[in-house]
């Protein structure tokens, strides 16, 4: 033990000395060379100094070389001449007042009288700038002797910055070295410690830091603390209107979606209607449908030039833009969320409750209203909240369809991209967080306590028909209408690909496809490439985080888990804005690169992957991993050969999830794209904005095809391994 300390300290001492020596040498070398160059520049410059009327020369020089400030002292004391500072402005005066007080000033002048250049080797501070001072003799050609001294102020900031950079590197190296030495010496499991440190670094730099920066920016005005931004935001009627708009939209969408979700979930779990598979596909598909696609077809069908509104009904003054359109589109896109929550809940409610009620001679309606419904109330509430938060955070649909209706997410986007008001944008998207957090809190502390249903309850498989045949037919009809509507929406987009000019000329054409693919191929390529890069990283990272959270004990675990989960609750708009705020200056200058988009994908999809990894891993007997350890597998090997194969279903579904979500991302990525790295969804948006609906349709269809292909492809993999999953869950 003592030995280890000694060794670690000894090695760190040697390491630190080495690092310091190397960096010192580098810095000195660089400074020497730079000084040499400055000296030569001074000499060269001194040859052009005229023998009298310096003013013009001085101002010319200052213009030509912005990083050199020349001053002149006339006369040569060696010849007994009077030495006089050439002063033609207050600035000159100030300089000489300062310079003459320097201890080496006289020595510098004196050196020049012997035709020597004197360069003061240390950096000095002049009016807050780092500078070097040099004294160069002025030897006018016509005289041939030293007639005065050229005093130059050289800008020292380059040398200083370089020095700072080197110091930064040296410190980083030393920290790294100490980390490695001490972790290796004192940790039983260095790989684990490094993994934990790296995960902390990632979540710290890419989750905590940007959000902190965004929050900080809203508290600053001209670099000092101020509540100006918040005062402005919270007193501006426009923004309050937008906040109210978001909430109203959320409430409406959540209510309608929950109703439709309940309709599907109830009918599919509590009756034996035909076509269950079809209906449940219809009720899940929109989850992976690309953004803008439903919006687009709504416009194509019901817009001012819409197929139905204009062509069929002949209406001229309808306007789908606004709250009504938004509610319809969001509901179509989000009722699947409610459906999935509610069918889980309804499946878990054992039919025996209902049977018992029936036995007690309750009517069907009574059974429903006194048993089924009350039991599913907590489920309904959480479905509602989930849709509500999704609706509030939604950005893509309102961006196109809101029209004059104001919602916060779009407002924030406008502030940032339209007005370049990063601080206001950040503040608005932080406001967006409040309803989300309220909903989360409600879910956590109220609904989960009210829940009577143990979700572990196995579905009994038996179906008790609690509805009369007439009601069943009605439910079936409603589902059919909604599904039909959904299908027609998707069909419209496909149709849009082949129509010459929607609303005006419904002639058939392939031109759209050719043009859209021509103009969109880079964006499609970029999007697919970036998503493909992010996917495995996000998947692996999620599984690694899941493993250390479930299996390892270490300080700060709760913090790590909280940080990893944050992006789940934070709207994409805020993530995007905080990224451009945080990563727009060195050393983390990422804005405009592919990296920032990839990192954004990874960070945003991490929580879902981690959650599913944790859930799967919790079911696996830890002694399986311990057995591997005791047979000689270190942490990394255990992860690779045991954990990853065992949580393969979670891994693959997190891969497919990340890929699909990255391909269809809008809200954060819209802030992060650049001319070099474009995103297909943004291109769809641009086409729609310019009323090129044909092109937009083609891209939306392409995106749907890619997403479906990947989704079903990976499904196939997971399906194959599901038999294995049963074995994992030992007892």
């Amino acid at each position, binding site marked *: 033990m003592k030995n280890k300390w000694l060794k670690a300290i000894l090695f760190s001492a040697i390491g630190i000395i080495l690092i310091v020596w190397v960096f010192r040498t580098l810095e000195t070398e660089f400074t020497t060379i730079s000084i040499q160059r400055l000296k030569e520049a001074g000499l060269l410059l001194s040859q052009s100094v005229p023998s009298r009327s310096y003013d013009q020369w001085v101002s010319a020089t200052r213009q030509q070389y912005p990083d050199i400030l020349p001053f002149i002292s006339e006369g040569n004391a060696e010849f007994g001449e009077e030495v006089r500072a050439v002063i033609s402005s207050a600035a000159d005066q100030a300089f000489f007042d300062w310079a003459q007080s320097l201890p080496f000033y006289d020595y510098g002048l004196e050196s020049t009288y012997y035709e020597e250049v004197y360069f003061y080797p240390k950096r000095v501070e002049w009016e807050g700038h780092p500078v070097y001072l040099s004294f160069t003799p002025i030897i006018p050609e016509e005289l041939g002797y030293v007639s005065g001294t050229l005093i130059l102020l050289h800008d020292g900031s380059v040398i200083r910055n370089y020095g700072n950079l080197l110091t930064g590197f040296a410190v980083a190296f030393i920290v790294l070295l100490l980390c490695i030495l001490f972790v290796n010496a*004192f940790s*039983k*499991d260095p790989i684990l410690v490094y993994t934990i440190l790296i995960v902390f670094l990632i979540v710290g730099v890419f989750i905590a830091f940007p959000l902190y920066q965004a929050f900080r920016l809203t508290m600053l005005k001209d670099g000092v603390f101020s509540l100006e931004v918040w005062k402005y935001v919270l007193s501006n009627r426009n923004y309050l209107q937008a906040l109210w708009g978001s909430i109203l939209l959320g409430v409406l969408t959540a209510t309608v979606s929950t109703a439709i979700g309940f309709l599907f979930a109830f009918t599919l779990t509590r009756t034996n209607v035909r076509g269950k598979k079809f209906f449940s596909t219809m009720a899940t598909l929109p989850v992976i449908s690309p953004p803008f696609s439903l919006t687009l077809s709504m416009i194509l069908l019901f817009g001012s030039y819409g197929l139905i509104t204009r062509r069929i009904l002949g209406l001229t003054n309808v306007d789908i833009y606004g709250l009504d359109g938004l509610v319809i589109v969001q509901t179509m896109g989000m009722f699947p969320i409610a459906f999935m929550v509610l069918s889980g809940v309804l499946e878990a409610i054992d039919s025996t409750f209902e049977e018992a009620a029936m036995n007690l001679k309750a009517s069907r309606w009574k059974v429903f209203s006194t048993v089924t419904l009350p039991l599913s109330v907590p489920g309904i509430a959480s479905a509602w909240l989930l849709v509500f938060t999704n609706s509030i955070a939604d950005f893509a649909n309102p961006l196109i369809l809101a029209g004059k209706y104001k919602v916060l997410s779009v407002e924030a986007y406008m502030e940032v991209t339209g007005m370049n008001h990063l601080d206001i944008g950040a503040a608005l998207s932080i406001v967006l967080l409040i309803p989300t957090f309220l909903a989360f809190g409600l879910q956590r502390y109220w609904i989960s306590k009210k829940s009577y249903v143990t979700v572990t309850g196995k579905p009994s498989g038996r179906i008790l028909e609690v509805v009369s045949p007439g009601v069943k037919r009605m439910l079936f009809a409603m589902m059919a209408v909604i599904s039909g509507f959904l299908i027609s929406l998707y069909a419209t987009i496909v149709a849009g690909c082949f129509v010459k000019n929607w609303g005006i000329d419904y002639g058939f054409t392939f031109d759209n496809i050719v043009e859209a693919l021509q103009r969109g191929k880079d964006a499609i390529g970029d999007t697919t490439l970036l998503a493909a890069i992010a996917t495995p990283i996000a998947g692996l990272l999620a599984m690694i985080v899941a493993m250390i959270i479930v299996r390892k004990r270490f300080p700060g675990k709760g913090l790590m888990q909280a940080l990893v989960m944050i992006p789940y609750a934070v709207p994409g708009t805020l993530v995007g804005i905080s990224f451009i705020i945080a990563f727009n200056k060195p050393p983390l200058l990422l804005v405009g690169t592919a990296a920032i988009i990839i990192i954004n994908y990874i960070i945003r999809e991490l929580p879902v992957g981690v959650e599913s990894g944790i859930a799967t891993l919790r079911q696996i*007997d830890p*002694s*399986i991993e*311990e*057995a*591997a*350890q*005791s*047979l*000689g*597998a*270190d942490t990394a*090997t255990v992860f690779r*050969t*045991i954990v990853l*194969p*065992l949580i393969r279903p979670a891994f693959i579904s997190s891969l497919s999830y990340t890929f699909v979500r990255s391909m269809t991302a809008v809200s954060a990525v819209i802030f992060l794209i650049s001319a070099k790295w474009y995103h297909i969804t943004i291109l769809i948006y641009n086409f729609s904005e310019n009323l090129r609906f044909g092109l937009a349709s083609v891209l939306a269809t392409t995106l749907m095809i890619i997403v479906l292909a990947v989704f079903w492809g990976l499904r196939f993999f997971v399906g194959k391994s599901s038999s*294995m999953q049963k*074995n*994992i869950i*030992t*007892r």
Partner: protein
Amino acid sequence: MSASSVSLTNVYKIFKGFSGEEIVAVNDISFQIEPGTFVTLLGPSGCGKTTSLRMIAGFENPTKGKIKIGDEDVTFIPPWKRDTAMVFQSYGLFPHMNVGENVGYGLKMRKVPVSEIHDRVSAILDLVGLNGFEDRPPSSLSGGQQQRVALARALVVEPSVLLFDEPLSNLDVLLREQMRVEIRRIQQKTGITAIYVTHDRTEAMTLSDTVIVMNNGKIVQTGTPFDIYEEPNSIFVAGFMGKMAYFPVKIVAWEGKNGIAELYDKKLTIRIAKTVTPNDAHQYVMACRPESLKIHENGKGAVPGVVATNVYLGNAIESYIKTEFGEIMVKSELHKERLCPEGSKVSLSIREDKTILLPLEQGIDLLSLNKAST
């Protein structure tokens, strides 16, 4: 196989509970295990057996103390760098690998050439009686077969110490007895050092060279199964090893290791347990196994009583005799004794050579001791 010694020196393990309280799972234990011996950690649930074993395996870090395997201090060495292999209660087989891959896993980690892995895997499967099971998935095996695979997987890497954590508790009684014999046979054959955790005293008795009895995170007695059974050093150990009858006595004199005990008006010469030193300040009880008591139909025995119940066991009979010290069980072989009917007045005689004196700890109630059945 190179069997190693194992030694623990003043090892503590303190867990932090949910509300931050300290749970002392292992409280200053020290022991030394000779190479090639079979040692059992025995004790009631929660006494820290598993924790001790896991510290030897490297899954837990001792809060304090030192662990050595052979000559190497392994206190801060991770599990994968220790030459130990563990057999788990829940087997811990890799569900995504077949039997052959499971058994070969440790060899692969040790970078053994593939052909050699194959040979060694089939050799070890032979040893555990699972010849030809290489390609079966673990889920298709019975519990006993799975545990054999787990055993083979641990054995095949020829560890210097083999660790078992209640490996048989998931098996039914018959299989358990069979596996017990198997484990002992394989350990003897391979000469490996084995540490075995159990709360089943029969397992401990039949398997071990040495039994370490633990209670409340401490070692209470170490010895051969015979010693532990016949010479317990405390009422706890005596009780844990099986049913005991206890009689409070007054020690009137000590003759070396023998105490002259007074019970009613009889004087008995009873030796004190080997590991206990006589101390006048202590109170003592006489303790003997039910088979060392004899029922007399007359008042010949030292302790008078009334037969409460007779329980017929086939090869023996258990009689419960109501006495002043509670209900005392007597076990007798049926064909040797005449059965005294329930309700008859009897007396009990005690075989002095089979009886020992144990210190009576403060606050222990004899009546309840005699009632508690094990």
